C-alpha cells in the first residue's frame, strides 16, 4: 500500500542533459529561477519558454512527468492567481458584484502564473535528470568555499545523501511493520482523527526503534572504516567539467543576455516599426 510513494523522481534516460555535471544543472536552475524574476514583459518570457522547451526536448523525459510536479501546486497557484486577479487596484476591465478585474490585476496574475509554472517545471527538469546522489555531490562541491567560514559542507552533504539512501529502506520497513500489526487485527483506517492518530503508535514505535538501530549500525560501520569527515577525503567519482559543461554555461549566459535584451529591445523595435 505504501509502495507507490516515490521520493526523488529521477527518470532514467540517456541524454545530454543527464550527462551534464550536476553543478551545471544546479547553477542553471538557480539562474533560470532568477531570470524568471528579472525578465520583464511578454518577450522575456517567450525566450524563457523557448529555453525551457529546448532543455525538455534535449532531456528525453516525457512531458507528462514535468506536469506531475505541477499537480502539487495547483492549489497554491489558483489562490495566487485569484487574489491578484481581483484585488489589484487599477484600471477596471470587468466588474463582478463587489470585485473587479483590473488591467494591472490581469497582467500580474498572468505573470505570476507563468513564473510559478516555469519555476516548478524548471526545477522538475533538474530532479528528473539528476540522481539525488549526484545532486548532493554537486551541492557539496559548489558550497565548498563556505568551508572557510566554518560551514560543515561535507557533513551536510553526507547527511543529505544518507537521508535519501534510507528513504526506500524505511518505506519497506514500514510496510513490514504495518503487515505485522495488521496480522494482530490492528485497524489503521476507521475512527475519528484522534483514534487514527493513536492507531499509528504501534506503527511508529517499531519504526523509530529500527531507524535508530540502523543509524547506530551505520555509524559503527563508518567508524570501523575510519571515516573522519571531509578532510583529505577523495571521491570515487570526482566531478570534472567536460567540454559539454562549458558549452552549457555559454548557452545559459546567452539565454540570460538574450532574455533581458528581448524584454527591453523588442517592444522598442516593434513600436518603431509600427510608428
Amino acid at each position: 500500500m505504501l509502495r507507490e510513494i516515490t521520493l526523488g523522481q529521477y527518470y532514467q534516460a540517456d541524454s545530454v542533459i543527464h550527462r551534464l555535471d550536476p553543478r551545471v544543472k544546479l547553477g542553471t536552475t538557480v539562474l533560470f529561477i532568477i531570470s524568471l524574476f528579472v525578465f520583464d514583459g511578454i518577450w522575456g518570457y517567450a525566450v524563457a519558454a523557448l529555453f525551457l522547451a529546448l532543455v525538455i526536448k534535449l532531456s528525453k523525459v516525457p512531458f507528462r512527468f514535468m506536469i506531475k510536479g505541477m499537480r502539487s501546486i495547483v492549489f497554491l497557484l489558483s489562490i495566487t492567481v485569484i487574489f491578484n486577479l481581483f484585488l489589484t487596484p487599477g484600471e477596471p476591465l470587468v466588474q463582478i458584484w463587489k470585485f473587479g478585474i483590473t488591467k494591472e490585476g490581469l497582467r500580474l496574475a498572468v505573470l505570476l502564473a507563468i513564473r510559478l509554472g516555469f519555476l516548478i517545471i524548471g526545477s522538475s527538469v533538474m530532479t528528473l535528470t539528476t540522481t539525488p546522489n549526484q545532486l548532493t555531490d554537486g551541492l557539496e562541491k559548489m558550497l565548498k568555499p563556505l568551508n572557510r567560514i566554518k560551514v560543515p559542507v561535507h557533513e551536510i552533504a553526507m547527511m543529505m545523501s544518507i537521508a535519501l539512501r534510507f528513504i526506500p529502506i524505511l518505506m519497506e520497513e514500514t510496510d513490514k511493520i504495518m503487515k505485522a500489526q495488521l496480522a494482530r487485527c490492528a485497524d489503521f483506517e476507521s475512527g475519528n482523527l484522534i483514534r487514527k492518530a493513536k492507531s499509528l503508535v504501534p506503527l511508529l514505535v517499531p519504526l523509530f526503534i529500527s531507524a535508530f538501530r540502523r543509524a547506530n549500525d551505520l555509524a559503527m560501520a563508518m567508524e570501523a572504516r575510519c571515516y573522519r569527515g571531509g578532510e583529505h577525503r577523495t571521491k570515487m567519482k570526482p566531478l570534472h567539467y567536460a567540454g559539454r559543461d562549458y558549452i552549457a554555461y555559454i548557452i545559459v549566459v546567452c539565454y540570460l543576455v538574450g532574455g533581458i535584451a528581448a524584454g527591453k529591445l523588442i517592444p522598442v523595435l516593434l513600436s518603431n516599426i509600427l510608428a
Partner: protein
Amino acid sequence: MPIILDKVSHIYGEDTAMAVKALDNISLVIPDGQFIGLIGHTGSGKSTLVQHLNGLMRATSGNIYFNGEDIDADDFDKKMLRSKVGLVFQYPEHQLFETDVFADVCFGPKNLGLSKKEIELRAYEALKLVGLEDDYFYQSPFDLSGGQKRRVAIAGVLAMKPEVLILDEPTAGLDPKGRDEILDQISKLKRETGITVLLVSHSMDDVAKYVDRIIVMNQGCVMFDDAPREVFKHYEELETIGLAAPQVTYIMKHLRDHGYDVSDEITTIEEAREEIKSFFARFAAARKER
C-alpha cells in the same frame, strides 16, 4: 476450519516491465489439526503464500476459501480471518511496541473488542503457552533476548486464539539452543491446543523432526507435498533447488551405500539411533547363528 487454495497466483508489479510471478497456480488444502512445514529457498514464494492465507495480500488470480467462504469477497470479515489465522512474522522487532511484555500481548485481543478481563486472561494464557516466565511479564520487550522476543511475538498472536498458527521463519537469527527451544515449545503448544500449525522455514533439519507434512516450494510452484519421509526420498531433486534432506538421512544413505543393511527412510536422529541399534542387534544375531 480448513483453508483451501484454488489455483492461486500472485504477480508483483503486474502490468509493468518488472512483473515477477511470485506464486504460480497453487492449489492446496490445509485441513484442521495438521502440523505442516512449508519449505523453500529464499525467493521461492513461501512468505508471499502465507500472507495470502490471512488476507494481507490479495491473489492476482484464483480463490482462497476459509471455512468454505471466499476470503476476497467484498463482505468477508478480514478482521475475523486474521484473528482465526494468526501469522507471526520473521522479526519480532516489527511488532513489539508497548512498554511492557504483557501490554504488548494484550494488543491483539484488544483489537478484537473483548472485555478487559478476557483480554488479560488470554494474554496470560498465551504467555504461559509460549513458556515465558512470570518475571518477564512487566519488563520492556526491547530488553529481552532474541529468543524471548520471539516468544512474546508468538504469544501476541496466540492471544487472539487463532485456529491456524503460521510462523514465518521462527528460528531465523537464533543460536542452535534457542532454535531447539522455540521449536520444542511450538511442538508442545501444538500438542496441547491441537491447532493447525504451518511452519515456514528453509531448513529441513528444523522441520523434519516435528511436522507430519512437508510442502516444498520452488519458484512459486509447489514441488512436493507429502509426508516427510516421502519428500526426503527426492533428496537429489531437493539439492538441485538448493535444499537438502536432514543430515542424518545422508548418514544413513552413506551407511547403506557401504553395504550396511539399514533403512534409508530415516529423517530424525531418534529414528536413526533406533535403526542403528536394531541393525547391531540383527548383526549380532546373524553372527551367533553362524
